[in-house]
């Protein structure tokens, strides 16, 4: 089994507003409205908060440590208040350590809001997106930031659109298999060091590292740069993990599946992934087998399970009396080829 070290699972505890602004600026079309900002303020939660009730006076259970979204409701409510009441409502929530505020739907801030935010060093952003769209985009970004991630030793390749992770002992030939697959038109995500991030429930997305991206070591040759060598068609930045293939030297005592009816899985960060153990033997072409693994996975995905179908055929045959197997074709009609 591959080594899944619980210690290697990382989860960001928080991100600061500066990081959010720099990385989500373009995604969420954020425009900074304040000029006295504390960008070191921390965001601890991937969820967003609409502080309507808090502005109206109910601050029990106020989720102040989340990004605060001011939509049309919040802005219309504040705008119809007198200046004194506006100040009072804002003071009520600015007492808390709010990381930042986003105004959606092109809402323009009124003066008191900008003044109070500057005074409290709370960054205020605006966006042209509607609240629904902003919530969708920002949640997705924050979700990704706060997802657990895990580093695994292996090669991740997109084979016919299926993400296969090759694992196994050092020197068993993972990189060579990956290289062979690239040569046949498949795409490399990363070699040796793969970082998997959990996306939603049940999805793991793998990518290479910043520094090791698309570099590969071939024993006896050294380090090669796959992207410059094979071009853009040979690589991709990220891929969903769909199958784990473990390569190992043939071991007499290990039982390898013969029918494929018993589907094994491996659990990585609570996600179950189909798992195949492949013994390496002379004359065994792992590359071609990997392609077949992918195609078989796709067939299953489209409802065609080869092992099951063979099994059903056999059961059918067993029910018949004269069940000696015969030719696949009853009569070769004038076929001399």
């Amino acid at each position: 089994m591959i080594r899944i070290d619980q210690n290697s699972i990382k989860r960001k505890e928080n991100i600061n507003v500066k990081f959010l602004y720099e990385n989500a600026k373009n995604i969420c079309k954020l425009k900074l409205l304040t000029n006295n900002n504390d960008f070191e303020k921390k965001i601890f939660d991937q969820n967003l908060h609409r502080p309507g009730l808090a502005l109206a006076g109910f601050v029990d259970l106020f989720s102040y440590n989340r990004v605060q979204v001011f939509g049309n409701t919040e802005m219309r409510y504040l705008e119809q208040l007198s200046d004194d009441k506006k100040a009072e409502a804002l003071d009520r929530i600015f007492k808390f350590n709010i990381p930042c505020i986003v105004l959606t739907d092109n809402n323009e801030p009124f003066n008191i809001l900008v003044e109070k935010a500057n005074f409290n060093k709370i960054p205020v952003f605006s966006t042209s997106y509607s609240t629904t769209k902003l919530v969708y985009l920002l949640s997705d970004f924050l979700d990704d930031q706060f997802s657990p991630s895990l580093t695994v030793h292996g090669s991740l390749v997109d084979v016919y659109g299926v993400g296969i992770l090759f694992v196994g002992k050092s020197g068993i030939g993972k990189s060579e298999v990956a290289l062979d697959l690239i040569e046949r038109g498949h795409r490399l995500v990363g070699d040796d060091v793969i970082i998997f991030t959990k996306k939603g429930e049940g999805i793991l997305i793998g990518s290479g590292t910043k520094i090791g991206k698309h570099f590969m070591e071939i024993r006896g040759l050294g380090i090669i740069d796959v992207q410059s060598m094979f071009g853009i068609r040979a690589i991709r930045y990220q891929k969903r993990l769909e199958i784990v293939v473990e390569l190992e030297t043939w071991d007499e005592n290990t039982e390898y599946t013969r029918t494929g009816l018993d589907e094994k899985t491996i659990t990585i960060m609570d996600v179950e992934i189909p798992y195949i153990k492949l013994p390496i033997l002379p004359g065994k072409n792992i590359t071609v087998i990997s392609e077949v693994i992918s195609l078989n996975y796709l067939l299953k995905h489209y409802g065609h399970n080869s092992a099951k179908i063979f099994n059903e055929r056999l059961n059918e045959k067993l029910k018949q009396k004269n069940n000696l197997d015969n030719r696949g074709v009853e009569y070769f009609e004038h076929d001399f080829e």
Partner: protein
Amino acid sequence: MMIEKTVKIINKAGLHTRPAATIVKLAAKYKSEFYIYRDGMGINGKSIIGVMTLAAEMGSELKLTFDGPDEQQACDEIVAYFERGFDEL
């Protein structure tokens, strides 16, 4: 049993390509599994790309784990190499 050791990078240039290659070569002599951890990222110490990915500069701390039949010998030789500052002191 598994051996765990924490080491510090003490040479000026940090863990650059030459020491990375030496570490991988030393590790490959042994049967034991050898992993290096930095800030929760664990890489296989027998993979050159992995060791280079660590980009461990001077002063950084790494956790090494050795697991296998010859773990003590592997640990001794590799830890000594770190402590010698990759022979660059």
